[in-house]
C-alpha cells in the first residue's frame, strides 16, 4: 500500500539514494539495515516527508503523492518515532500527545483538559502504558517516553483515513533487554492497526522483529530478505561486502595486564547526586568496563576521572599522585584522554581540519611561545591518517565531513598521538557500522598492548564482555560487583544482568 518507485536523492557531492524501490504491505513489519552512510536516514526522511525526492514517485494505495513537509505526510498516515526523542520535557504527557492538534478539545477558545485527558488515556491504552496523562513528561523513564511517542503517532489512526505507516528509528538503542521485549510484543500486536518500518543497527533485533528486511549499501537497496531465509552473517556480508570476522571482539588478542602498577585509583569517591563510594583501580594494559543501565552513574564516573565533575568526597590518585581540584586541563596534562559519547558535539570540531582536530588537545607540544608549527602538525596528522587508515582526502579535510567511524579514529588519534596512556572511552562504537566497529576493537587491543589503561562504557553488554579484562557493574550510583573477565572465564550476560537490574 505504501510504495517508493525509483526514488532518487542527490546532495552536493553525494548521490544519497539511487533509484530505490521500496514497499510496505498492510500490517507488515519491514526492517531497514545498512552501514552508516548507506542511505537509511535519507530514505527515512523521504518517507516521513522531511526531504523531497529529486526523482521517482511516492505512491499510497496506487496513487502518486508528494509531501511538502512532515505534517503533510502525517495527514496521509505516515508517522515517525524519533531516535532523539521529540517530546517536550516540560509539557504533560497529554499535551505532548496532542501537540499541534489541540483544536479538537477547544470550546470557546479554552482547552477542555478533561476531554484531552480522557482521549490521551485512550491513546496510552493502545501502547499499554498505565500512567496519568497529566504527568510532566520529564518524570517518565526513557522507555516510557518512547511509548508515549508511539502513542502520539498512533493518534493518526483517528485523524487519518486509510492505513498507517510508522517509522521506528533505532528505538531500542538505549532500552534494557526486558524493555526491548515489551516493545517488540507491542509492535507485533499493533500490526492490526499499522505497518512498521524498523531501523536499527542491532541485526539480531531486526531479524527477530521484521517480516522482510531491506539491505542498503551506498544509497541503493542491495537485497530484500524474507523472514528466516538468511543468517545474520549473510546479511552483514551484503551490507559491508565482506565477511565479519568470527573473532569479533578480538578476544584472541586479549593479554593479561600488569597488575603491579596502578594508573588510576578512585577511593571512596562521592559525587553530587546519586553516585556514592566508588572504588576502582585501573592498571596498565587493562580494559576496565563500567556496566549498568542508562543513568546508573557510568558516565559520571568517567567524567570524574577526566576532571569534568568534581567529587565531593574521597580521593583520586593518578599514577601514584593524589590529585585534587582536577580539571580537564589537569587530566590531559597527566596523560588522560577522553572519547566522549557525543562524537559530533564533544569529540570533533566540525569545520576544522583533521590536523587541527588531532592537535587540539596538545597545542603546547606543537608550538613555541604560542606560535604554532603547522608543518609539524600536518606531518603528525599524515602519520596517523596512514597508521589508522583514516579515510580522508588529506590532513586538510574538514573533519565534519568524515564518516562517523573516521571521525572516531581522528578522536582516538588525537589522544594517542599525544601519548595519553589513560583512555576513557564512552560508547566508542555508538552509531558506527560493523567495519568501523571492528577497527575500534582493534585499536583498543593495540592500545592495551602498548600498556594503555582503558576505562570503557560499552554500547552493548556483549561488547563489554568481549573486550574487557575487568567488569564493574554499577547500579543506582553504587558499585554492585566486580567481575574478572580473563579469556575463557568471562561472565555471561545473565551474570551481569542479575546485578544491573
Amino acid at each position: 500500500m505504501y510504495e517508493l518507485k525509483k526514488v532518487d536523492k542527490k546532495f552536493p557531492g553525494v548521490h544519497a539514494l539511487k533509484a530505490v524501490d521500496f514497499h510496505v504491505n498492510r500490517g507488515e513489519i519491514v526492517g531497514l539495515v545498512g552501514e552508516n552512510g548507506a542511505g537509511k536516514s535519507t530514505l527515512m526522511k523521504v518517507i516521513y516527508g522531511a526531504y523531497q525526492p529529486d526523482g521517482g514517485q511516492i505512491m499510497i494505495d496506487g496513487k502518486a503523492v508528494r509531501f511538502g513537509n512532515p505534517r503533510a505526510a502525517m495527514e496521509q498516515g505516515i508517522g515517525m518515532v524519533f531516535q532523539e526523542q521529540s517530546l517536550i520535557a516540560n509539557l504533560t504527557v497529554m499535551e505532548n500527545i496532542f501537540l499541534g492538534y489541540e483544536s479538537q478539545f477547544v470550546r470557546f477558545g479554552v482547552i477542555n483538559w478533561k476531554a484531552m485527558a480522557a482521549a490521551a488515556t485512550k491513546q496510552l491504552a493502545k501502547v499499554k502504558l498505565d500512567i496519568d496523562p497529566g504527568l510532566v513528561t520529564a518524570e517518565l523513564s526513557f522507555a516510557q517516553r518512547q511509548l508515549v511517542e508511539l502513542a502520539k503517532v498512533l493518534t493518526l489512526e483517528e485523524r487519518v483515513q486509510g492505513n498507517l505507516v510508522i517509522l521506528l528509528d533505532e528505538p531500542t538503542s538505549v532500552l534494557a533487554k526486558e524493555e526491548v521485549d515489551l516493545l517488540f510484543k507491542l509492535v507485533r500486536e499493533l500490526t492490526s492497526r499499522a505497518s512498521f518500518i524498523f531501523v536499527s543497527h542491532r541485526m539480531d533485533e531486526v531479524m527477530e522483529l521484521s517480516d522482510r528486511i531491506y539491505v542498503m549499501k551506498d544509497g541503493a537497496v542491495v537485497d530484500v530478505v524474507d523472514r528466516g531465509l538468511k543468517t545474520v552473517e549473510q546479511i552483514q556480508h551484503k551490507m559491508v561486502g565482506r565477511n565479519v570476522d568470527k573473532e569479533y571482539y578480538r578476544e584472541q588478542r586479549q593479554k593479561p595486564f600488569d597488575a603491579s602498577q596502578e594508573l588510576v585509583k578512585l577511593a571512596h569517591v562521592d559525587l553530587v547526586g546519586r553516585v556514592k563510594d566508588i572504588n576502582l583501580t585501573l592498571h596498565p594494559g587493562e580494559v576496565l568496563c563500567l556496566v549498568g543501565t542508562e543513568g546508573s552513574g557510568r558516565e559520571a564516573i568517567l567524567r570524574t576521572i577526566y576532571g569534568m565533575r568534581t567529587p565531593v568526597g574521597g580521593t583520586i590518585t593518578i599514577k601514584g599522585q593524589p590529585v585534587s581540584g582536577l580539571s580537564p586541563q589537569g587530566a590531559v596534562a597527566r596523560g588522560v584522554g577522553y572519547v566522549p559519547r557525543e562524537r559530533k558535539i564533544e569529540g570533533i570540531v566540525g569545520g576544522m581540519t583533521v590536523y587541527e582536530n588531532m592537535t587540539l588537545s596538545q597545542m603546547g607540544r606543537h608550538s613555541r611561545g604560542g606560535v604554532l608549527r603547522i608543518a609539524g602538525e600536518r606531518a603528525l596528522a599524515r602519520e596517523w591518517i596512514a597508521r589508522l587508515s583514516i579515510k580522508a582526502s588529506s590532513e586538510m579535510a574538514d573533519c565534519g565531513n568524515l564518516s562517523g567511524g573516521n571521525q572516531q579514529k581522528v578522536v582516538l588519534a588525537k589522544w594517542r598521538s599525544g601519548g595519553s596512556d589513560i583512555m576513557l572511552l564512552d560508547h566508542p562504537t555508538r552509531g558506527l557500522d560493523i567495519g568501523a566497529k571492528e577497527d575500534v576493537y582493534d585499536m583498543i587491543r593495540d592500545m592495551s598492548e602498548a600498556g594503555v589503561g582503558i576505562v570503557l562504557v560499552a554500547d552493548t553488554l556483549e561488547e563489554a564482555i568481549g573486550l574487557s579484562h575487568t567488569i564493574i557493574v554499577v547500579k543506582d550510583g553504587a558499585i554492585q560487583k566486580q567481575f574478572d573477565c580473563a579469556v575463557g572465564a568471562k561472565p555471561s550476560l545473565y551474570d551481569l544482568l542479575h546485578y544491573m537490574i
Partner: protein
Amino acid sequence: MDFQRFKPHLPWITLVVLVAFVGMVDDTFLRPANLLSLAGDIVPLFIMALGLTFAIYIGGIDLSAQSMANLITVVASVYLASFGWGVAVLCLLVGFGFGMVSGYVTTRLLVPSFISTLAVGGVAFSLAQFLSGQRALNMDAAQRDAVFGWMIGKTGPVPNELFIAAGLLAITLFIERRTTLGRALKAVGAGEPAAAASGINVARYKILAFAISGTLAATAGLLFAVKLSGGAPTIANGFLLPAIVAVLVGGTPLTGGVGGVLNTAIGTLIVAVIRSSMLYFNIQATQQQMVFGLVLIGAIALTIDRAKLRTVK
C-alpha cells in the same frame, strides 16, 4: 550554482560588484586619490571591526565597542597633557581591562555576551561622561602633533592611517592563523563542547577574545581622538552598527567559527563603498543608519549557520 559553495566567495564578489557599479555612475569615484582618502577615512571603523571580529569569531558579540571608543577619546584628551605618549599605553590598558571584565562576566557569571558587553558599555559611557564633565574636550594641537602627528600624516599620497591598519591586520591575521590562541578561538567558535572536552581552557580564551576586542576598540578610539584632536562621550556614536555590518558582510557569521580578520577587511571596504555612494546619491546622514540596519539584517540572514542555532529567540 550551489549556494553553500558560493557563500565563502560572496564578500569579495559583492565588493567588486559594488565598486564597479559606483565607479560607473560616479566617474570621480575610481580616481586613486579618492580611493586612498576613502580608505584612510574608514580606518578607525576598521580597527573597531577588527576587534569585534574576535568576539564574533567565538560566537559572541561585543556591543561595548562604541562606548569604549567614546571613553577612550575622552581619556586621551584628558590625560595627553600629563602623560604625553604614555597616554596611548593607558588607553590600551583601559580597553584591555574593560574587555576582560566583559569576558569575565560572560564566562564566569554566565551572562550572555550581548548583555554583558551592553552593560560594560553602559559603564564605559558613564565613565566617559564623568571624566569629560559632559563636555567636548580639545587636545592641545601642538602636543598632539608632537606625540601622535605621525598617525594622521601622509607618506607620499598614502594616508599613514593605512599603514596602521595594515600593521594591525597583519598582527591579528598572524594571531588568527599561526598561534595557539587563534586555533583555540576557532575551536571555541566552531565547536565549544569539543574544545572543552579536549582539555582547552575555554573560559580563559573567551576572556582573551573580549580583551582583544576591547583593546582594538580602544585603539580605534585613540586614533579617532587624534584625528579630531579631541574627545567627547558621544563622539564615536554611529560606529557600532557599521562595524558589526563590516564583520558580518565580510563573512564571519554571528554563530562564529568561520571567517576572520581578512574577511573583516573586505567587509569594511564594502561598508566604505556603501557609505561613499550614499554621499554621492545624497542620502542624508540621518538616514545612513537605516541603510546599515537593513544591510545588517540581510547579512545576518545570509551568513548565519542555522545548523548551530536550534531556535532563534
